[in-house]
């Protein structure tokens, strides 16, 4: 096991966000998996469900490794975590390259899904607590930058992977070569993070407006205690509801906008629908840095009131008037997606406010299980209801009215859960070193 790398005197905290970004921009590639699906299906004779397996397993492993690996990340530090993420994520591609070359699809599932998925989970939480410690005055902005990188990773990988497949060819040799180049390139790219990441010394970081909290300053709660508090579960519900509402639109964006305006005088073309999806990605990414930074000014509870309350209002506007105005539909969807991204990026700072910095990375990892459930729940609600409405003879915006009603209900549940969040009771706090020593002395006396 390694000890966390402590920053030398004069180390700038502005070296930490690029370290975090080098990891998050890489692992964000996961959301561009769909680029590999059509060539894999034709080269290895797979159907759509089979070709989605590596991605689905990777997301499951992301949640599991973040939840179960969080304590290890806290113990061994961010450099260890980033190294594990680098090795797993890159190895996943290399194993997949072998699988594509030998036409052994199970190797791609194992490599990209299982091994690479561990890299996703450990990589996702690796810089979170370090960033919060370096930016005690702006934790929302700091984690927002990193988590925006996860959204940005797909923006880079999607055109890059597509161009690579065009050059190498869509047969199994071409796919294998593309996987190989991905694995090696991401290994080099992520190395920057491994080299640059440092935990702050105990003195004031250069350029900060306030002193960083030491591991025992203020309210500090261990990960084990945190999961026994109602606050953790309230936040779990908040995150799950917010993500479900966002994924509900994101997952079905292109057919949704087409259906909404199918009967209008200006129906939406396929390329315009693709443009809408791209715009949603931009809103998702902008929300991560924009809303998360705003939370440093107006407070975490207030920003979640906006995400959940205004989010519900936006869904209501789409349900009532969305099919009569394309700009209104697009605007509301963009706001909802910006709240979706903002919800992801703000939650580490919310956890820090409630549980302190002591084991915030591990607590964040456990909270990400809410994402795993939402990832299943959101698409399931929208797709299942739309299919049944279609069977019932409905069409256009009527396919989504019930889904939007459910989304509003879920956001209201999340809003109530956010209102129930209170400061953590003192019995869950980790005692400060001096208090712990006093207790020990009293017990031994």
């Amino acid at each position, binding site marked *: 096991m390694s000890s966390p790398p402590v920053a*030398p*005197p*004069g*180390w*700038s905290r*502005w*070296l930490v966000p*690029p*370290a975090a*970004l*080098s990891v998050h*921009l890489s692992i964000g590639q996961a959301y561009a998996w769909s680029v590999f699906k059509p060539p894999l299906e034709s080269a290895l004779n797979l159907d759509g469900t089979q070709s989605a397996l590596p991605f689905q397993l990777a997301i499951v492993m992301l949640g599991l490794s973040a939840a179960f690996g969080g304590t290890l990340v806290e113990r061994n530090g961010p450099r260890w975590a980033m190294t594990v993420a680098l090795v797993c994520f890159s190895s996943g591609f290399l194993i997949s390259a072998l699988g594509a070359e030998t036409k052994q699809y199970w190797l791609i599932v194992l490599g990209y899904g299982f091994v690479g998925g561990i890299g996703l989970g450990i990589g996702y939480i690796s810089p979170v607590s370090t960033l919060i410690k370096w930016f005690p005055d702006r934790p929302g902005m700091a984690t927002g930058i990193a988590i925006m*990188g996860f959204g*940005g990773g797909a*923006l*880079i990988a*999607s*055109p*890059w992977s597509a161009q690579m497949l065009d050059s190498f060819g869509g047969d199994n040799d071409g796919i294998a070569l593309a996987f190989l180049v991905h694995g090696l390139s991401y290994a080099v*790219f992520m190395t*920057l993070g491994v080299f*640059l990441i440092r935990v702050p010394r105990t003195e004031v970081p250069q350029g900060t407006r306030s002193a960083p909290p030491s591991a025992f300053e203020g309210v500090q709660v261990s990960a084990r205690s945190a999961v026994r508090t109602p606050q953790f579960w309230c936040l779990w519900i908040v995150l799950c509801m917010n993500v479900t509402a966002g994924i509900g639109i994101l997952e079905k964006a292109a057919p949704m906008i087409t259906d909404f305006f199918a009967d209008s005088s200006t129906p*939406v*073309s*396929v*390329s*315009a*629908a*693709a*443009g*809408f*999806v*791209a*715009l949603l*990605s*931009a809103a998702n990414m902008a929300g991560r840095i924009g809303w998360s930074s705003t939370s440093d000014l107006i407070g975490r509870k207030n920003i979640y009131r906006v995400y959940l309350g205004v989010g519900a209002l936006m869904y209501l506007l789409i349900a009532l008037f969305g099919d009569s105005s394309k700009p209104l539909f*697009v605007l509301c969807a963009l706001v909802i997606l910006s709240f979706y991204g903002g919800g992801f990026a703000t939650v580490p700072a919310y956890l820090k406010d409630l549980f302190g910095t002591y084991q915030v990375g591990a607590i964040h990892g456990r909270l990400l299980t809410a994402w795993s459930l939402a990832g299943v729940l959101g698409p399931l609600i929208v797709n299942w209801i739309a299919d049944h409405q279609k069977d019932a003879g409905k069409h256009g915006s009527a396919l989504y009215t019930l889904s939007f009603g459910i989304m509003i209900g879920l956001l209201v549940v999340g809003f109530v859960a956010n209102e129930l969040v209170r400061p953590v009771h003192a019995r869950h706090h980790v005692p400060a070193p001096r208090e712990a020593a006093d207790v020990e002395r009293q017990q031994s006396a």
Partner: protein
Amino acid sequence: MSNDSSPPDRRRLIAFAWIWVGAPFAYGVYELVQKATQLFNG
């Protein structure tokens, strides 16, 4: 007069690190903008 104990200047390292992550990110944003304009043109 220079102080031997002063910490090294990290500005070049900071610039390099931000370009390292900024360049591919800018490429991704450029591709995104190209695609997003289809909503208004398509």
